[in-house]
């Protein structure tokens, strides 16, 4: 720390790290440990999930192929049980698709309104409200589906077709409402992040606001919007309470949204609540279904990442 100027022949200047670096190293180690812990936990869960599921497929009564292609799910019959998972997968997809049909249009319009049309004041008020909506407990929503949405559907669409008390439509619509805030809030972030210069460029050419929104802002925000939808999709696929309460518990291979169905998550709840003894087929099937759920979510994420890479407009 001396300030004298050394000549060319003097001793070299000391460039080694001082002691203040010690604290920095400590913090770094701490951060590393935390990151490692969360990664290890995730890895642990995945390992347990798949090793238990592997136990299921080693049983004589089931095969991986029969599991993935079978159309009958009767898991509670012991060795006589039928473990074809397609009805559960179909139930999950049916509810999820209905949820997306509700959430994507609603969420994107809300996002476009908030980002492009609303005054800064309105946005300041509405966005937090929207985000609070995301925090409504799902058990409340499930109850809402059962006691409000189902009667509403029966009073309207019910005139044309029979609607069972438990049905995929009611659960799907309410699940859609549940994920609207996720889609809207994250898409709004993505749209707001589109540089104002791009909008001005479009306005400067005589574009209308509507044109600017769907030809400039939406494409430029595409990767954020897709990410928002994927996150919402993940919540929908994994959602348990609403479907358990409102969609029923009948593994039913159908595309009719007004029938009772069972989703993968609802089955897991049902099986865990029943007294399936550890090591039994039913018990192990929980892990098989869980592992499949995990794989499906993973595949959707990968597909979305590819989609985004292909179609996004990079603007920076």
């Amino acid at each position, binding site marked *: 720390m001396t300030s004298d100027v050394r000549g060319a022949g003097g001793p070299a200047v000391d460039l080694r790290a001082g002691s203040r670096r010690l604290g920095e190293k400590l913090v770094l180690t701490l951060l590393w440990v935390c990151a490692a812990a969360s990664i290890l936990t995730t890895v642990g869960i995945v390992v347990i999930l798949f090793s238990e599921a592997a136990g299921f497929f080693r049983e004589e009564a089931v095969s991986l192929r029969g599991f993935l292609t079978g159309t009958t799910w009767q898991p509670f019959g012991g060795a006589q049980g039928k473990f074809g998972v397609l009805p559960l997968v179909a139930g999950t997809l049916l509810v999820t698709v209905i949820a997306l049909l509700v959430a994507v249009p609603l969420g994107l319009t809300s996002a476009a309104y908030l980002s492009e049309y609303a005054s800064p004041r309105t946005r300041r008020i509405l966005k937090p409200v929207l985000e609070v909506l995301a925090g409504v407990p799902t058990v409340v929503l499930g109850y809402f589906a059962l006691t409000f949405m189902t009667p509403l559907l029966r009073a309207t669409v019910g005139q044309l077709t029979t609607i069972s008390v438990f049905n995929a439509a009611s659960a799907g619509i309410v699940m859609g409402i549940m994920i609207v805030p996720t889609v809207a809030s994250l898409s709004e972030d993505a749209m707001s992040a589109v540089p104002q210069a791009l909008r001005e460029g479009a306005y400067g*050419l005589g574009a209308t606001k509507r*044109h600017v929104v769907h030809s400039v802002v939406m494409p430029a925000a595409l990767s954020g919007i897709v990410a928002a939808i994927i996150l919402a999709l993940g919540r929908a696929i994994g959602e348990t309470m609403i479907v358990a309460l409102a969609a029923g518990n009948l593994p039913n291979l159908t595309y009719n949204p007004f029938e009772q169905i069972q989703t993968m998550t609802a089955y897991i709840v049902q099986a865990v609540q029943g007294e399936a003894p550890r090591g039994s087929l039913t018990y192990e099937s929980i892990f098989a279904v869980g592992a499949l759920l995990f794989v499906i979510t993973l595949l959707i994420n990968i597909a979305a990442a590819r989609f985004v890479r292909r179609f996004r407009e990079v603007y920076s």
Partner: protein
Amino acid sequence: MDQQHEQARVDGHARTPVATIADEHRRNGARLDSDLARQAAAGRTVRDDAAVVFDLDDVTVSYAGFPAIRNVSMQVRERMITALIGPSGCGKTTLLRTLNRMNDLIPSASVEGTVRYKGADLYARHVDPVEVRRRIGMVFQKANPFPKSIRDNILFGPKATGMTFDADDLVEKSLRGAALWDEVKDKLDSSALGLSGGQQQRLCIARAIAVEPDTILMDEPCSALDPIATGAIENLMRELREHYTIIIVTHNMQQAARASDMTAFVTTEVSHDEDGRDRRSGRLIEYDRTEVIFGDPRDTRTEDYVSGRFG
């Protein structure tokens, strides 16, 4: 001092002889003799009969109630290049954006006074800003091509405004018009963001002329470009002048002197409000033929600015 500001209104090119400090200075016989003055004088002569395109009368533009530029009165004539020069922050961009209602996009901005475009009041109640911007195109300080292909950039405006057009013809014509065709004709479908900065800016000009506007506003289009790209854009402006009215903001004295027919000098003035706080706002000081602004300005502030003595 105040008399001098009222002078800034230039009706045509007739100048009212009012004794000002600058006039005093001129009578002393000190005509500016500089490269800039010579370049400005070498330009073509201004047609005195050109029709008035923009007629600004006592225009004041404010942000959140504070005037950024005030009491501007001037007339911009058809098929000429009019340069706006002045120190940073004096309100050139603000004034330019007032001319095609771009300031509508800034919630806090407000405009007083009248802006007439070919006789029509731009800020009248029934005027559609979208229609205004279709006729009065804009090129921004920083090139802002859309993150789409070169072709889609050109076709964006025509599609947005519902023009009927032949896509291939229009793309070629616009790119040729912006002196970019030869460089990009083989990669029309690749991203516009893969172009160099100068090419991007010319693409933005091509995009602007694709909608066939009458007038083009350019906000420092060359500020990020090297001298070669700048030269290309200046040549382009001279060609565009045959068909379009161009208003260009520039910090580059050389550019204003070389390329423009008319020049307006705007500067920041500090006044004090009741509480004794500084209020800065831009004023139009002098507006005249470019050769006059650079060779024989009336106002000492103009003279100081164009001769680089601005402090």
